[in-house]
């Protein structure tokens, strides 16, 4: 018997309409855990670099994490992996909600889609019964609307539905997959789902999910629950509100947005408004949120209430997550009422709330600077907020300028030309980033931005305080019950870290220390992504309930896999390296490992070079960021080094330009 996982994947060939239930190899679980780990292996095995994002041979994998559906609090994430049309690298966006546990209860760990359906369809999975059903009547419908309609027509109110909106159908490069109160947004995976002709996947499961050593596993779960209660009652002093507690973070609960609004950039990630937050705004925004927020809500088996049902006046109710609360507001220099309103349309259309507002602000900046003209915006309203709604409608329909903008700022700027590229200034690996521009280079963040292959800072940072504490007493207080550190040395790094002077950024923490810190931060995210754990209870917040010391026990008692800290660290390193290998095989090199040029005002080229060199070496990568043969073989990834050798990848000096064809253009040829 298999524990925590079901041991079966659903393989669906959309071209032929073939459905198979395939038993998986327990050995693979031991090596790559599950979720992201086993996804990376499947992409390596079956999606070679010759396969384009919109090729029928690209796979779209919906995976539940290894511990999803078990009683482990907050373990509910679906990890969706494919090749991104925007970055042309491996995307592994994730969503919370209810879908992954439901898939487990139906008896499957993953749904693997290949081929393309000639007509728009949706999938209906109910335990043993799996159907490909016509979705012609759902064409053009909103993602949330689609979920409701499918539950109604199936007469299955308890089915969980992951759906795309118009943006996914029209292959917008930052289209999301929406589900429950969550969405898998980054990397344009919704576009791949649309390209495959799949409008939605509905799941209902009524099967048992087994636990290997029940009593021990439950004792661990109870400890975590008690610790969550403790942390809820004891927020961490001296840090901003969203970092004081647990959660992903609990943006829908928080009224005080001084920190975000004054430290993040407005518009096309240009303008910092240092004195923005005042009493009047605080009151107005609180009234807006209180009047529209019907209820704080959670994902499956989680008490954290990070989301909310929002009912903007005159618009349907929708479920909002996290930071989309502010991204539209800030891109448009508007207020919270506008932000919560347009996010309703954006959720139905199914678009990423980081990229979308930025693309629209970018377009308006090009317009203000004469690079785009009135001819590009026929019929666009004169008012600022109306323009954002108008642009959103054009983008998701790929109409006129919307067709260009639908590919994101990087590709749009290339196509527009006339100097537009200078305005697409906030991307990493062609992917829009959080609107942050800071002053002094931070060496820890430099490494995370440069090398994080999720290409999103929130998906690699966490655990280690973002800044030093002013007073030694505060630091000593903080490290007192810091049980989550993998090694005592991290406490010392933090104790010695000063705001000014010798032991301050950018030269402290030293490159060696930065390697340790970043590696720990990244490792925890990768473990979460294989287990299906929400980062909000694990890798993201300070002092989380899940950490490197209790995770091995969860895996051992839950899944029945022999596990300790070293073995878990090694497994995470294995599939983390495999993610990189997939991207290296697609042309990613050192030149791509860099934050936006203007992310910090004060840059230190020599230090940055040293940081990257040291980190590459620490990771077992060569100076091009390619995992070396030795490090691959040590991880049991000799099949990767063999492939690299066959492809001549090791002789690549990094000067060969990676493929620069937009997936959309390629498709039309």
């Amino acid at each position, binding site marked *: 018997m298999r524990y925590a996982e079901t041991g079966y994947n659903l393989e669906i060939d959309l071209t032929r309409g073939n459905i198979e239930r395939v038993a998986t190899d327990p050995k693979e679980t031991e090596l790559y855990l599950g979720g992201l780990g086993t996804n990376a292996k499947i992409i390596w095995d079956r999606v070679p670099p010759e396969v384009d994002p919109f090729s029928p041979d690209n796979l779209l994998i919906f995976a539940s994490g290894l511990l999803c559906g078990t009683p482990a609090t907050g373990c509910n994430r679906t990890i969706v992996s494919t090749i991104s049309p925007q970055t042309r690298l491996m995307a592994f966006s994730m969503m919370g909600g209810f879908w992954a546990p439901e898939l487990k209860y139906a008896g499957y760990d993953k749904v693997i889609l290949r081929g393309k359906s000639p007509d728009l369809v949706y999938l209906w999975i109910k335990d043993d019964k799996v159907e490909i059903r016509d979705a012609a009547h759902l064409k053009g419908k909103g993602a949330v609307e689609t979920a409701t309609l499918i539950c109604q027509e199936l007469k299955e109110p308890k089915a969980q539905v992951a759906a795309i909106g118009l943006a996914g159908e029209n292959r917008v490069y930052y289209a999301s997959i929406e589900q429950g109160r969550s969405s898998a947004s980054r990397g344009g995976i919704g576009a791949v789902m649309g390209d495959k002709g799949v409008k939605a996947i509905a799941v209902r499961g009524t099967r048992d999910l087994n636990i290997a050593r029940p009593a021990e596993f439950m004792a661990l779960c109870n400890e975590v629950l008690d610790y969550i209660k403790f942390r809820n009652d004891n927020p961490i002093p001296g840090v901003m509100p969203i970092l004081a507690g647990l959660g992903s973070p609990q943006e829908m609960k928080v009224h005080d947005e001084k920190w975000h609004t004054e430290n993040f950039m407005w518009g096309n990630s240009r303008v910092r408004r240092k004195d923005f937050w005042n009493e009047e705004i605080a009151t107005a925004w609180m009234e807006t949120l209180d009047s529209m927020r019907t209820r704080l809500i959670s994902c*499956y088996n989680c008490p954290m209430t990070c989301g909310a049902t929002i009912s903007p006046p005159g618009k349907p109710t929708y479920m909002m997550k996290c930071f989309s609360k502010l991204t539209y507001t800030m891109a448009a220099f508007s207020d919270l009422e506008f932000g919560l309103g347009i996010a309703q349309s954006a959720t139905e259309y199914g678009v990423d709330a980081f990229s979308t507002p930025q693309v629209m602000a970018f377009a308006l900046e090009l317009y203000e600077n004469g690079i785009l003209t009135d001819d590009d915006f026929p019929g666009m309203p004169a008012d600022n907020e109306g323009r954002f709604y108008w642009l959103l409608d054009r983008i998701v329909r790929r109409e006129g300028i919307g067709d260009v903008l639908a590919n994101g700022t990087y590709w749009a700027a290339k196509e527009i030309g006339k100097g537009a590229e200078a305005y697409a200034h906030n991307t990493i690996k062609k992917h829009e980033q959080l609107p942050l521009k800071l002053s002094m280079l931070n060496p820890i963040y430099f490494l995370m931005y440069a090398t994080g292959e999720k290409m999103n800072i929130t998906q690699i940072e966490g655990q280690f305080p973002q800044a030093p504490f002013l007073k030694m007493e505060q630091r000593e207080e903080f490290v007192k019950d810091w049980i989550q550190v993998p090694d005592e040395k991290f406490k010392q790094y933090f104790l010695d870290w000063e705001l000014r002077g010798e032991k301050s950024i950018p030269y402290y923490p030293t490159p060696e220390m930065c390697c340790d810190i970043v590696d720990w931060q990244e490792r925890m995210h990768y473990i979460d992504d294989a287990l299906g754990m929400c980062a909000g209870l694990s890798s993201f917040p300070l002092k989380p309930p899940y950490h490197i010391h209790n995770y091995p026990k969860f895996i051992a008692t839950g899944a029945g896999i022999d596990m300790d800290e070293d073995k878990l660290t090694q497994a995470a390193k294995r599939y983390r390296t495999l993610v990189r290998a997939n991207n290296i095989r697609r042309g990613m090199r050192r030149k791509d490992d860099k934050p936006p040029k203007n992310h910090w005002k004060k840059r230190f080229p020599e230090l940055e070079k040293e940081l990257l060199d040291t980190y590459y070496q620490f990771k077992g990568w060569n100076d091009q960021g390619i995992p070396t043969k030795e490090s691959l073989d040590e991880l049991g990834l000799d099949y990767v080094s063999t492939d690299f050798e066959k492809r001549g990848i090791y002789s690549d000096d990094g000067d060969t330009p990676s493929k620069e064809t937009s997936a959309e253009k390629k498709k039309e040829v």
Partner: protein
Amino acid sequence: MSGEKKMKIIKTIKIDADKCNGCRACEMICSAFHAMPKYSSNNPARARIRVVRHPLEDIYVPVYAGEAAGAECAGRDKYVIDGKQYDECAFCRAPCPSRDDFKEPDSGLPLKCDMCEGEDEPLCVKWCITDALVLEEREEEVEEEATQEELAIGLESLADKHGLQKIIDAVARMSKAKKG
């Protein structure tokens, strides 16, 4: 004909639907606790509690499994509370022929909440740290003999119908058969 008064502890789960965040931890832990062996598996479809959940209508009703009903109700009513429309079945505790809730998914046998016998508190309560489910115990004065009173009323009506002698004869025959 009043019976003896006695104090009894009544266990009540106070359900504050306004506090429910819809996470369904209650369903999960209920099914895990009642698995054989305990916690060896979980499956919310087997739970003896269910959250009736319609997020977009802001409907969240945790409801417990009660006594099975042999037949479905003749009519289905709708409740409108604070502008939200609830199906009557939303509040109903009975496993019944009209729905799948509160039945074992494989055998169809009815399920009933047992307040997690043997535990300090029902586990759904323990796991609901948003406090939508809270255990309240209260002492209540109950009349132990209430059933005797009901019996007398029943017998009286039988005596009216059949005559007292026939009832006495029947009771004598029954007690003889039991002893024999």
